[in-house]
Structures are given as structure tokens and as C-alpha cells.
């Protein structure tokens, strides 16, 4: 079976700074794959490169066999994947409902938009309650739910989630992780960047560990949870 997403020798730079130094990643349909690592390891850069927000310096990004390496960000949703960006970045001056409709911008069929909206409201009842409110007035947890909901509006086959638990209260973090499992059960494949290692490994099928722009370890979530596997990269062992 061809993987849904495949990165081959993927490199990304900011000027002279090498953020990602040639990594290979494979994600199969129906998986949750966690991309872990300390600050500055290159996780978010990888996500931005896949989504077209930063140019890929070298290597390939293949989505379902199609080369999407050089697609501009606006072509990414219709290819079938979306990014819920780090820091949520909801449109604060738009209402919750308008934020969600923007997520479905590429969909022209009104009935399909309503179906997608229904699905998001079923996942996040709070967003239905608050749909007329400006997104800027939501709490951090609600904004995170809106960011994920917005990314789901175009019915992606692959969802890229960049630090969905960042800055949220512990109780809300649990809800977000539970939701990510639910999405996988609904058939959405997920690439999850997280600093909350325990939370991510509890729901992931597999994980990659990054340090200084390289993959230094990969394996099933169970293997990665086992003693010592993670400590090195966070404590600077590499």
C-alpha cells in the first residue's frame, strides 16, 4: 500500500539556517503519527513545508502518490490535506461561523458545506452555541477547537495538527487529545506535532523523534514510550 504522505530527503532552510536537514517520513492511511522533539528541532518547519507556507529547499513531498512539493498553500486544501497551525491563528475579527465557512472556501457545493458544518458542530457543540460570536472573544481552548474545526471543513484526508495542546489548561488538553482519537476513528489520518510527549504517545500509532533538523528515532508509540527512548533528545544527548 502506498503511504498517504511520504517525505523524501525533505530539507528546509531559512536563509543560511538549516531548519530541516533531510528527513524521511511515511504516514499510512488511518494512522496517527506523532512528530516529537524539543523546541527548534524542526517540527513546525516540517509542517509549514508540507503545507506550502515555507518553500521546500530539497527533497519531495508525495501525497497519495502525487508530488505536492512545490504547490502554493492555496492549492493544498483541494489536494486533500490541511494544516491547523501553531498558535491556532483563528480569524479573530470574523465570527465563529464565518471562520468555519472560510475553512470550506474551496468547496462550492452549498449542501456539502452544510454537511461539513454539521459534522464540526457535532464534534464541538460549543462552537454551535457560539457561532455568531467573534472568534477573538473565545477562550484559548475554544479557539483551538475552532482551528481544528476550520481545518476539518474541507473534509481533508490528512490533517496536520501543529501543537494543538499548547497553552491550554490540563483538562482541555485531555479533551483535545480525546478528540484527535475520535477523528482517527472517523477515518482522518493525522500528523501531530506535540511537545506534550506523554499525551501524544498515548493516542499515536507511531512516532518520529526529531532533533536539530534530523529524525533521530522512530518506532511504534509503545516502543517510543519505553524507558529512556525519549530522554536523550530532550536532555541534549544528541
Amino acid at each position: 500500500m502506498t503511504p498517504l504522505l511520504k517525505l523524501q530527503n525533505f530539507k528546509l532552510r531559512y536563509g543560511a539556517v538549516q531548519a530541516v536537514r533531510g528527513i524521511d517520513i511515511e504516514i499510512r492511511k488511518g494512522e496517527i503519527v506523532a512528530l516529537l522533539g524539543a523546541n527548534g528541532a524542526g517540527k513546525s518547519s516540517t509542517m509549514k513545508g508540507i503545507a506550502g507556507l515555507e518553500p521546500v529547499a530539497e527533497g519531495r513531498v508525495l501525497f497519495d502518490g502525487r508530488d505536492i512539493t512545490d504547490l502554493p498553500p492555496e492549492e493544498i486544501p483541494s489536494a486533500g490535506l490541511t494544516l491547523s497551525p501553531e498558535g491556532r491563528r483563528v480569524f479573530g475579527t470574523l465570527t465563529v461561523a464565518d471562520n468555519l465557512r472560510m475553512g470550506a472556501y474551496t468547496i462550492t457545493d452549498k449542501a456539502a458545506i452544510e454537511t461539513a458544518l454539521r459534522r464540526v458542530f457535532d464534534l464541538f457543540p460549543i462552537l454551535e452555541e457560539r457561532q455568531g460570536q467573534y472568534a477573538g472573544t473565545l477562550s484559548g481552548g475554544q479557539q483551538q477547537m475552532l482551528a481544528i474545526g476550520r481545518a476539518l471543513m474541507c473534509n481533508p484526508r490528512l490533517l496536520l495538527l501543529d501543537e494543538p495542546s499548547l497553552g491550554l489548561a490540563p483538562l482541555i488538553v485531555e479533551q483535545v487529545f480525546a478528540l484527535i482519537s475520535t477523528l482517527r476513528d472517523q477515518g482522518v489520518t493525522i500528523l501531530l506535532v506535540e511537545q506534550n510527549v506523554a499525551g501524544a504517545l498515548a493516542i499515536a500509532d507511531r512516532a518520529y523523534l526529531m532533533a536539530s533538523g534530523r529524525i533521530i528515532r522512530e518506532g511504534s508509540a509503545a516502543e517510543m514510550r519505553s524507558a529512556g527512548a525519549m530522554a536523550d533528545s530532550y536532555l541534549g544527548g544528541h
Partner: protein
Amino acid sequence: MDLILQQTVNAIALGGTYALLALGLAVVFSIMGLINFAHGELMTIAGYVLMYCGLAGVPFVIGAPLAVIAAMLAAVAMERIAFRPVRNSSGATMLVTSFAVAMILQVLFQNLISARSQAVVIPDFLGQSIVIGGLVIGVNKLFAIVATLVMLVLLETFMSRQKHGIAMRAAAEDFAIARLMGIRANTVISAAFALSGLLAGVAAVLWVSQRASVDPLMGFTPVLKAFIAAILGGLGSLRGAVAGGFVLGFVEVFLAAFLPAEWQEFREPIGLSLVVLMLVVRPNGLIPAATLQAQKV
């Protein structure tokens, strides 16, 4: 009392024109961070189209929409030719580019049309006045107020209800994320320029209706005023641009009407001092743009 009402009508008419122009500047600035000083030349283009329509005997009701369409096309062409190549450059680069575009167009008008002011045929009814409740109101003033209101309502509906209008607001707030939603950068920027051209075109028709003439530098003064209005309202904020335009219109008209005769020659500096005073109290403008505010906090 009557004089105050009379001047209020004048202030709304003038302020409305400033508001339309300031809105045009704000729409483009909010999307791509460009202060387009060539906005005034869009007005001039619309003015010349109106002039040629008059010379060709085309009636005003057809000439005016043609002038507006010409300004829209010119705005889109301006973006495509001059601003797209410098889109990702600094604000300063884009600002200088806009000055260059303005000057090139001014020289073209001077050499291809005329350096001197040209008369524009304005229909007689615009020069007449009607009496409403004891107030004598020029039809051109009334026309300006009605046209401004129609434009503001149309724009508000577009921006808050239409998918593409909402997408423009999304792009104004966070361009990169808007693109992630599938909103095309080229489309949204072209649309912003078309909208600014539409507003400049309507403002030009109103401006020329008052003066019945057009010259190569016609656009400079009103756009400078609109720029002041946009800053006063909060740069990049659409509601702020409208508020700033009307406030500036009121300040100018009321100073002209009520300042003692010996002070009249200081009217402009006094008006601008008032604007500066307002900015001292509200440095981000009357109704700041959400994104600009966030940067400054």
C-alpha cells in the same frame, strides 16, 4: 441654526467623498500593507473618461458608470503591472513604487492630454438646488450623499455577507492562513484593487461634479486628505477610514464656515492640528484595525 444644518449637509457631502477615498486606500493597505499614493491618479483617469464622454456627447448617466469602470480596470492593471513584482518587498519599497506610478501617470496625462485644466460637461440638474424644510441643498451635494450611502451599504453587505468579502477580511487579518484555506493570493489582491478602483471612481465622479473640470494633478489633494482620514481613523481599518473621512469633512467645512475672517488663511493648519490632537489622544486612530493594534500592544 439653519447655517449649522446647511454646513452639516456640506460636511456630510465632502466627508463622504473623503470616506470613499480613504476606504479605497484602507482596503488595499489592509490586504497587502501598501499605501497606494497612485490612488489619486485613478480618480484622474475617471475624471478624464468623464471629460471625453462629455466631448463625445455621451450622456452623464452612461459616462459616470464608464468612468467608474475605467478606474476599476486601471486599478487592477496598476496592481498587475507595478505592484505584483514588488509584492513581497518592504512597505517602503511599495510606497516608493506607488509614488513612481503616480508620477508616471501624471506626466502621461500632461503630455498625452493637456497640462491645463479641462472643462467637463456636467448635466444642468446637478447645478441646481432644491429646498428641503427651509434648507437650500445643491443637487450635487445630495447626489454625493446618496452615492456615498449606497456605496457604504454595498461595501458593508459585501464584506459581511458575501463569501469573497469575508475572504478579504480573513486575508487582511492573516494572509498566510487565509491562503491555507484555499483563498488565492492573486485573486484577493486583484479584488482589493478592483474595489479601491470602484471607490476612487465613484469619488472622482462626485469630485468632478462639484468642480466641472479635470487636470493632471487633480487626484493629489483629495487623496492626501483621504490618507489623513485613513490615518485618523486607524490605518487598515475600514470602519475607521469611513469615520476618519467624515470627521475630516466636518472639521474642514466647519472651520471654513465659522472661523473668523482674519483666521481663514490658517484654516488648513488649524484643521490638521485638530487631527494631530485627536491622534495624540488615540494614537492608533479612532477605530483601529485589529491586527495593527495587536502589533502595537
